[in-house]
């Protein structure tokens, strides 16, 4: 495959990685935007979802409202945001052209898995466990903090992990509004019939997605090991 050879040649040429428009800088930019969008989504989505899960109410509404972020194509939302007066296409600090619009669009995209998982995780903590906790005299906050949250953590983490990888790969659409990130390598490559370059960009995005997935999986495995609660609950509470 000639194209793959061209892609390899593109990847192994150091000059393509250096400089302000090189892949190194673009990769950093895309990581920054991914992490920021994820952090924003966590800030907005996690407290609401966890609390509603604790109450066991309002989850249907929260999940469906957040699912709008999935139903509207992220590119459509981005296109809409850049045409509006605010946030528009203005440079936004290290996020580059249309940075704010890109962040908002990606945040909306990150919300559904975070909210859905967090709500379900807390809501599905077994009733008898909660009852026992209350029987021991725990307050609502203690119940949430010491019982529900630890039990919910693995599922919450898996939602965040899904969101992280999705946002990373989707962040390439910023290139369609001349925004930040590695999408530029892909669009430039295909626009100039330099397919090797386009494929090279896609390969870097895919490789980083795998790395992020592995790192996130390791983190998830770490937080899922909660010997004090899980160990005890594992016996005698089979349903």
């Amino acid at each position: 495959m000639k194209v793959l050879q061209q892609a390899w040649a593109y990847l192994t040429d150091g000059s393509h990685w250096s400089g302000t428009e090189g892949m190194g800088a673009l990769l950093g930019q895309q990581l920054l935007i991914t992490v920021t969008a994820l952090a924003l989504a966590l800030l907005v989505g996690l407290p609401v979802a966890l609390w509603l899960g604790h109450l066991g109410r309002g989850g249907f509404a929260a999940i469906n409202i957040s699912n709008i972020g999935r139903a509207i194509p992220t590119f459509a939302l981005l296109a809409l945001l850049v045409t509006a007066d605010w946030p528009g296409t203005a440079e936004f600090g290290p996020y580059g052209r249309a940075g704010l619009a890109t962040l908002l669009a990606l945040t909306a995209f990150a919300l559904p898995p975070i909210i859905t998982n967090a709500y379900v995780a807390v809501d599905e903590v077994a009733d008898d466990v909660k009852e026992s906790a209350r029987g021991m005299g725990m307050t609502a906050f203690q119940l949430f903090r010491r019982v529900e949250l630890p039990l919910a953590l693995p599922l919450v983490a898996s939602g965040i992990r899904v969101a992280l990888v999705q946002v990373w790969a989707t962040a390439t659409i910023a290139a369609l509004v001349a925004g930040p990130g590695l999408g530029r390598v892909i669009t430039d490559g295909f626009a100039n019939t330099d397919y090797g370059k386009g494929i090279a960009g896609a390969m870097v995005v895919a490789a980083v997605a795998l790395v992020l997935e592995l790192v996130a999986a390791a983190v998830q495995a770490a937080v899922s090991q909660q010997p004090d609660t899980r160990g005890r609950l594992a016996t005698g509470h089979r349903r």
Partner: protein
Amino acid sequence: MQFRRLLATGLAAGALLLTAACAGDDLNSNPSDGSSSPTAKGSLTISGQDWYEAAIVANMYKELLTASGYDVSMTLVGTRDIYMAKGQFPSGVDVVPEYVGGLIDFLNAQANGSEVEPISSADAAATIAAGQSLLDAKGITLLDPSTATDTNAFFVSKEYAAANGLANLSDLAGKDVVLAAAPDCKGRSDCEGGLKDTYGINITKLLPLGFASEQTYQSVLDGESQLGETQTTDGTVDAQGAVLLADDKGIQPAGNLVPAVSTEFLAAHPDVADTLNALMAALTTEKLAELNAKVSVDRAKPEDVAHAFLVEAGLV
């Protein structure tokens, strides 16, 4: 199980697509209503590109040739590669509405590889002369090129033009300019490369926002960029508050409209030349821009716009 289900879905979708494609073929190969075909001169196939300007011109061809007695079938496609493929033009397709520079450079790239230097120039006659051997080898005859020409063009906002006294691209020489253009603009002699090297404009940044796109206009009108890329036949420039700068140093290859006809078909049907040459003589760049706006802005149908023009020009 999973795989089988996928396969079944794929097959079903494929079958649907096939059905749709066949239906489309039937529609396309149906001769037009046939209300007025006085003398049957035989069948004639037109192909061409399907974007609005090419579609308007192709519909003019279709109506004129139908009126002169041909049984015309027309299929418009996305890119030149499709109708220039083996078995299409000039063997399966007889007539294609073309652009001088675009066609010659395409044939050149096809014959000598995509890395080859373009042989087109700003002059239509010179470009045709340079490409004559390629045309002969392929069996294509070009009729008379029109004065109507569609090439890349560059616009600035009216305020920026007034503030800096701009009318030609050469007025921008030495200035720092941000350019909003198609993503393939970088380095091209008819785009960023030519603006830099021939005009001496200092392009500080190239925003790949698209050819004549909403985003390109927005960027120029907002003042984020100063120069935007569009085409000479863009009928919306003035209404959007922008103005075209003249290509006074001629970096654009000749984009004159020209009918490309299969040499063999033309030998058997020489009257096609008179019909289409009359149309080429009637078209101008300004007229084409006006017609384009009717389709791209007012959402009129290409065939209606084509018909209205032919009536107005007295060609039918």
